[in-house]
C-alpha cells in the first residue's frame, strides 16, 4: 500500500470553525464603534485604542515567552479583543500610562494568572477597567464631551454624560433633564462617554454581525437588554419625573457595549441557553440597581463581573434539556 493512512475515530470531518474565526468576527464587529468614536472624540479615541491593544499584546507575549515559557498565543486574537474592549471602556483623554497599567492588570491578573485563554473566571478587559476605576477615580470618571473629529487628545473638554444626568434627575435635580441629549443623538452616538460605548446604533450593527456569523447566540444580549428595559420601564411608569424613559437607559452608558460584547465573552459566560438567560437577567437587574442606587453612575462593569463569579453555579443549576427527560 502506497499511502500512510490516518487511524483516528469518528467524526472524520470538521465544520472548519476555529478560535481565530470567531475572534476575527468579534474584532470586525467592534470596528464600526471605533470609527464612530473617532468622529465623536477625535484622535484620542484612536491613540487610546492603539495603546491598549499594543500593551495587551505585549504583556501576553511577554508572559507566555518569559514566565510561562509556552508558545505564543497572540495568534488567537483574544488579547487583541481584550485590548479593544479595555480601550472602549476608557474615556478618550486618559493618560497613556494608565492604559498600560490597565492592560497589565487585564492580561496579567485577569487572564494569564489563571492559565490563559479559556481559564479566566472574569472578563479580563473588565478586570483592567475596574482596577483603573478604583485606582484613578477622577480620570476615569471625567468624560470628554463630543467635540468632533478635530478634538484634541489630552486637553479634551469634559462634561457630564447622559448617565450622570440620569443619576442627578433620579436624585431630585429634575432640572438636569433639560441637559439630556435627544434620544436620536444618544442612539447614533453624538454624546459623551467611554470610547466604544457611545453609539447604540453601531453596537447593534455589531450584534447583527455576531449573530449572522454564528459567533454568539441571542440569549445573553436580549435577556440583558429586555431586563433593563422592563425594570427601568416600570420605574418610569411609576414616576416619570424622577425616572427617565427606558430608551435612555438602553442607549446610554456601557449597556449596549457590555450586553453585546462583554457579557457574551465565551470564557466567562454560562454554557447552556437557559443559563445564559438567567445570567443576562442577573446582569440587567444589577445594572439598574447600581445605576439608580449605587454611588457609581455606571453599573454595567460591576454587574458583569459579579455575574461572572456566579457562572460556575449557573452551569451547575441550569442543565440543558436532556433528550427523553420529559418523556411520558
Amino acid at each position: 500500500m502506497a499511502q500512510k493512512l490516518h487511524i483516528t475515530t469518528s467524526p472524520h470531518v470538521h465544520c472548519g470553525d476555529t478560535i481565530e474565526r470567531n475572534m476575527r468576527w468579534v474584532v470586525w464587529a467592534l470596528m464600526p464603534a471605533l470609527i464612530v468614536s473617532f468622529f465623536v472624540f477625535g484622535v484620542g479615541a484612536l491613540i487610546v485604542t492603539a495603546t491598549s491593544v499594543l500593551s495587551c499584546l505585549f504583556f501576553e507575549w511577554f508572559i507566555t515567552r518569559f514566565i510561562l515559557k509556552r508558545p505564543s498565543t497572540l495568534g488567537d486574537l483574544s488579547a487583541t479583543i481584550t485590548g479593544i474592549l479595555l480601550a472602549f471602556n476608557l474615556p478618550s483623554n486618559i493618560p497613556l500610562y494608565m492604559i498600560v497599567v490597565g492592560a497589565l492588570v487585564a492580561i496579567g491578573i485577569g487572564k494569564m494568572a489563571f492559565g490563559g485563554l479559556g481559564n479566566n473566571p472574569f472578563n479580563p478587559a473588565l478586570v483592567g477597567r475596574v482596577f483603573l476605576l478604583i485606582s484613578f477615580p477622577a480620570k476615569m470618571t471625567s468624560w470628554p464631551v463630543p467635540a468632533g473629529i478635530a478634538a484634541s487628545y489630552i486637553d479634551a473638554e469634559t462634561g457630564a454624560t447622559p448617565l450622570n444626568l440620569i443619576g442627578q434627575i433620579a436624585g431630585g435635580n429634575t432640572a438636569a433633564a433639560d441637559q439630556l441629549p435627544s434620544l436620536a443623538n444618544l442612539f447614533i452616538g453624538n454624546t459623551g462617554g467611554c470610547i466604544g460605548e457611545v453609539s447604540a446604533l453601531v453596537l447593534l450593527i455589531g450584534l447583527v454581525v455576531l449573530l449572522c456569523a454564528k459567533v454568539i447566540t441571542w440569549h445573553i444580549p436580549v435577556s440583558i437588554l429586555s431586563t433593563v428595559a422592563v425594570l427601568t420601564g416600570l420605574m418610569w411608569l411609576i414616576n416619570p419625573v424622577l425616572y427617565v424613559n427606558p430608551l435612555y437607559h438602553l442607549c446610554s452608558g456601557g449597556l449596549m457595549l457590555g450586553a453585546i460584547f462583554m457579557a457574551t465573552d465565551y470564557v466567562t459566560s454560562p454554557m447552556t441557553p437557559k443559563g445564559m438567560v438567567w445570567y443576562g437577567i442577573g446582569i440587567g437587574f444589577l445594572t439598574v440597581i447600581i445605576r439608580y442606587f449605587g454611588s457609581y453612575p455606571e453599573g454595567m462593569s460591576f454587574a458583569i463581573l459579579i455575574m461572572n463569579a456566579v457562572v460556575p453555579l449557573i452551569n451547575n443549576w441550569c442543565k440543558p434539556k436532556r433528550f427523553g427527560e420529559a418523556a411520558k
Partner: protein
Amino acid sequence: MNTFTIGGVHPEPNKLTADKKIETLGLPKQAVFPLSQHIGAPAVPCVQKGDAVRVGTRIAEPGGFMSASIHSSVSGKVAKIDTVVDASGLRKPAIFIDVEGDEWEPSIDRTDTLLLQNNLSREEIIEKIKNSGVVGMGGACFPTHVKLSPPKDCMIDTLIINAVECEPYLTADHRLMLEHPDEIIVGIKLILKVLGIDHAVIGVETNKQDAIELMNSKLSMVSGIEVMPLKMKYPQGGEKQLIEAVTGRQVPPPPALPANVGCVVQNVGTVYAIYEAVMKNKPLIERIVTVTGKSVKNPCNLKVRMGTPVSQLLEYAGGMPEDTGKLISGGPMMGRPLLDETAPVVKGTSGILMIPESEAARREERNCIRCAKCVQACPMGLEPYLLATASESGDWECAEENWIMSCIECGCCQSTCPSRRPLLDWVRLAKNRVGGIIRARNAKN
C-alpha cells in the same frame, strides 16, 4: 416540516453518487466472513476447512439469542478458519472461502419477479428472517428478528422506516428506493404483519426529492404506509432522533427502547433484505455499498457480495486516489477508519469513503474556550465539554450524573469544536468506564 428538536448540525452533504445507478461488482477470488458482523454474541462456524459451500449456504449459526447466522455469498471451498482485521481495527475470527464458480443453493429464487403474496404466519416470517441472518443495515447491525419481537408489554403502533441517510456522502439507501421501491413496499407490509399493526411511516430527508416522489406515487393505492419528508439535519437517521421527528415522542434514556414509546424502526436497506429473505428465500449475502470521496475517479454505488475485500471495490472505483489520508468504512460522521484495504465487506458496510490528507489530519488541540457550541450541537441535550473534561480527569461519577450513557456518539460535538478538542474520544472512554461501573452495580444488587 418535521425534524428533531434538540441540537443537530449541517455537515456538507457531498452526495456525489446520488445519480449513479447501482452496479454489480464481480466475484472476489476469496471471500472472508468475520464471525462478529452484528451486535451480540459472535456466530459459531458450522463448516470446516475443506467443506464445499454454495451461494447461500449457512456457514455460521447464531451464538446466542442476540446473534445472527452468516451465509456464504460465494460458492467454493472453505480455505481456513482464521482471523482477519475488520473495521474495528482488531483481529477477529473469520471464515475464509476460496471461490470456485458461482453455484447457488437451489432454494433461492434468483429471478427479478416481484412477489406480492404469501401465506406465511408472523412466526414463520420471523423464523425466515432469523434463518437468513438479517441484521440492521444502517450500520448498527442489530439482529432484526430480535428487534421485530418487542417486549410483550409494549404497545407498538407505528413502524418507522429509516430512509434518512443523513450521513454525508452515502447514497446506498437513496438508490435502493429509486431502483427497488416495490420490493421495499412488500417488505414494509411483511413487517407490519409481524408487528400486527397497520401504520408505517417512511422518513426521508428532502434532499432525496426524487425518492420521495417515486415512493409517493407507488403508495397512492396503498393504505397505511406514508412518506414523511423531513427537514435536513444531522443526525436525523439516529433512531431516537427519527422517532421524535416522525412522531414527536422522545425515547427515555437507556435502558428504555423505542418500543417503550410504541415505535419500531427499520432501515430501508433492512426492509429490502427482509423482502429477499422472506419472498425469495435469499439470505443476507449482498449489500449496496457507496464507494466515494472527493478525489475518487469513479465514485459509485455497488452491489457487493459479503466478504469481498475492500481493495476490489477501490479498484472498480478507479483506485485509491494519491491524496487519500483516511480510508473509512461508513460515513464521515460515524464511520470507522480502516487500517488498510484488505478488510472484507460485512453486513454493516454502508460505504467506503476516502478522505483527502488535507481533511484527514486532526489539527492541534487547544484550550476549551467555553464557547458552548458543543452544547448547542448535541442532539441528546448533553454537555460534551463537561463530559470530556470529566473523562480526562477520571471523574466517572460526574460523567454518569450528567447523562453520559445517553450519548449516541454521533460526533456533532467534535465536528463543531473550534478548539478541535477530541471530545468524542474522551466521551467514549468515559462511556465505557461508566457502563462497566453500572453493570457491576446492577450485578451486586
